């Protein structure tokens, strides 16, 4: 892998060269812009490119860039016109990270300012989709894999392969695990990952010491860290009643921070081999869900779904009402900030048949119809430079997606932060969209139907109203029906 720093400075040079060129072009550039809406008039003002090119430029199609084409297309928007980019994200904890990046970016690109827009996770993607329909979405936004596939399917995302090459970046510069889940079924990239997150087992060391329970980190070292050990530990750690109740663990009705991990550890899968049907009704999956349900209903060592509505996971952990839980690497930033009066650490998830967890990566997407697509790409490219990508690691969010910076997620607290990095080895991602895309339409298009039904049926199990088998049979019927409809 070549040194990405060089690429960024090279970009910087090209950028200023373009800027200078644009100043020289002066009004001509502006007239080119003004002429964009009227195709025939635009032709005479564009020196080297074929007549049709200038009209295509603002739509930001990455022209197979020759040195000549670049200055006529890109700079008109990036350096000349002051641009105000809208940047949509859902996690408020990331705000200090991105705003510091925006300041650096604007310092280097005078005239381009970036306005962050925070929309809670539940609304982030639905809002984007409504904005797509209205033709006025945020220019750059955070993406997860399911929605990246859906949005790419709807041609709402700017293809970035050509721009990546132009910028001197290679796919190989990125962690394979983070990139793989964003490669669209057509083999192209429509989103650029910036960090990879993994799951770990977080625990309150003080509560464990008080209950004289061995630390999971030690059990892990001794090879004894398995589901049985977790179950026993949760029982030891559960105490009290009513408002004083302390729960030993939390089995949560959520894929990424819950059952995906148990299913994978039990050698189960989310989909059948050819990704045509759900595997949630398979014996391995149902066994994993039964294990979680037992913690809630039989052992009562985990809060049930109702109790979680009163007080959520993280506040419980901060208040020492929850001794252990499955933490995402992205929780570290909040855990560091909010835990002041006890010691905590992390280790790998306990094993059943295997010791594997779930991984995911967050990516930047660019709105295909953004009038500022070139400026938006400049921003995404800037946010993929080593210095900027590194922040996601040092601030405790995840492993930076750039290989050269992958080591940045390593400094304590927690002492054993390395567990999150180790958890990536052999971990499974949810490739449902990429894989299912090969047989038709990416499932992301139906993700709302799938995740809503999944959450509802597993909620029935965790509330003790339905058996795992009944609920999963009903769920499989609904999900498979949604898959069928997707193909049609």
């Amino acid at each position: 892998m070549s040194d990405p720093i060089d690429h960024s400075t090279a970009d910087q040079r090209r950028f200023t060269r373009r800027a200078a060129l644009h100043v020289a072009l002066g009004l001509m550039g502006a007239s080119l812009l003004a002429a964009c809406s009227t195709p025939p008039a635009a032709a005479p003002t564009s020196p080297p490119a074929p007549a049709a090119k200038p009209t295509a430029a603002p739509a930001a199609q990455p022209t197979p860039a020759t040195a000549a084409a670049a200055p006529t297309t890109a700079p008109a928007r990036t350096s000349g016109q002051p641009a105000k980019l809208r940047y949509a994200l859902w996690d408020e904890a990331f705000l200090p990270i991105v705003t510091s990046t925006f300041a650096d970016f604007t310092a280097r690109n005078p005239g381009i300012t970036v306005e962050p827009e925070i929309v809670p996770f539940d609304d982030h993607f639905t809002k984007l989709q409504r904005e797509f329909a209205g033709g006025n979405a945020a220019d750059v936004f955070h993406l997860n894999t399911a929605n990246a596939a859906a949005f790419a399917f709807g041609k709402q995302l700017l293809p970035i392969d050509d721009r990546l090459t132009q910028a001197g970046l290679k796919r190989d510069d990125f962690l394979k695990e983070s990139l793989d889940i964003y490669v669209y079924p057509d083999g192209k990239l429509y989103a650029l990952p910036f960090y990879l997150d993994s799951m770990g087992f977080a625990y309150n060391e003080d509560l464990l010491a008080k209950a004289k329970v061995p630390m999971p980190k030690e059990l892990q070292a001794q090879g004894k860290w398995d589901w049985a050990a977790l179950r026993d530990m949760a029982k030891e750690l559960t105490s009290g009643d009513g408002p004083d109740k302390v729960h030993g663990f939390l089995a949560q009705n959520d894929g990424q921070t819950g059952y995906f991990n148990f299913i994978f550890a039990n050698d189960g899968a989310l989909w059948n081999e050819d990704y045509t049907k759900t595997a949630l009704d398979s014996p391995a999956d149902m066994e994993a869900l039964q294990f979680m349900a037992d913690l809630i209903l039989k052992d009562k060592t985990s809060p049930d779904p109702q109790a979680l509505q009163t007080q959520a996971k993280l506040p419980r952990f901060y208040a020492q009402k929850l001794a252990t839980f499955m933490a995402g690497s992205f929780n570290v930033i909040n855990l560091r900030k909010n835990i002041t009066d006890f010691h905590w650490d992390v280790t790998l998830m306990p094993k059943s048949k295997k010791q594997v967890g779930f991984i995911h990566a967050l990516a930047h997407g660019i709105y295909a119809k953004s009038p500022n697509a070139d400026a938006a790409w400049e921003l995404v490219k800037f946010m993929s430079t080593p210095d900027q990508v590194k922040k996601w690691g040092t601030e405790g969010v995840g492993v930076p997606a750039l290989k050269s910076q992958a080591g940045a997620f390593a400094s304590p607290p927690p002492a054993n932060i390395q567990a999150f990095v180790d958890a990536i080895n052999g971990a499974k991602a949810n490739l449902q969209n990429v894989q299912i895309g090969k047989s038709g339409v990416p499932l992301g298009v139906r993700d709302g139907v799938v995740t809503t039904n999944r959450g509802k049926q597993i909620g029935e199990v965790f509330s003790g109203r339905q058996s795992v088998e009944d609920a999963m049979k009903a769920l499989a019927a609904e999900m498979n029906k949604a898959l069928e409809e997707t193909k049609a």
Partner: protein
Amino acid sequence: MSRDWRRSLRAAAVGYAFLGAPLAGYIVFTIVPVLGAFYLGLLRWDLLTEPRFVGLDNVGRLLTDAKFWNALKNTVVFCLGSVPMAIGGGLALALLMNQAVPGIRVFRGIYYIPYVTSWVAVALVWSWLFDRDYGLLNFVLRVGGISGPAWLNDPTWALPAIMLVFAWKWMGFYALILLAGLQSIPRSLYEAASIDGAGAWARFRNVTLPLLSPATFFVVVTALINALNVFDPVVVMTQGGPNDATQTVVKYIVDNAFQFFQIGYASAVAAATFVLILALTLGQNWLQRVWVYYD
């Protein structure tokens, strides 16, 4: 003749000019979207890819969609439960507020507060009251030796719980309208009834109720429309759960449109609901001839 005609034309023009502003708003923001929804109901559209014309496919799907029928059933049950509760409670409050008690104006203000409070705030506070472990309601029941249900997380109790909140929220508003109706009943009629030997109940039954019927009619029509359109408390308190026990028609429309992005199907459900509400309102208009007295 022609001058008269011209004058009336000018009067009409002035009238329409005054009507114009509100009418334009009504057409742009209500009539056009409603017609648009009927058209969208003929499409298959996910807001991402190009819409496709599918004719009456969505209507066919609607007829066989168990989830839609469940939502419709819940909505009907909700209306049957919450409307009498809200109007009955409103009437009781109106009768109380019609008494000449010192400080009655303060009480009138207090009963009106729920109506002007935001639905989200109301629903959030009630969610806490209904909480299984820490809720006030279950605390009171526990003191009385009863172990209360999980309310909003119990498929049996979730819908009745929302009915209660709905009735509580609207009661004060309906009470105010009914109170105005009560106060417009001439005292002389009560005096005449008393002289004829009518007791309190007979006066209520034969004077108050019939003369209150125009106000009651208005309240019944609006309450029914409000109940059929119930959405905010459902979203805040249960999100339609547990297991679709509180899924209502409007919530189902929103889910389909903005969670599942089946805009066409959602519009078809919306159009069906529109027709249903229109039919109910027309039916009530017809029925009022039987039970509403205007003097």
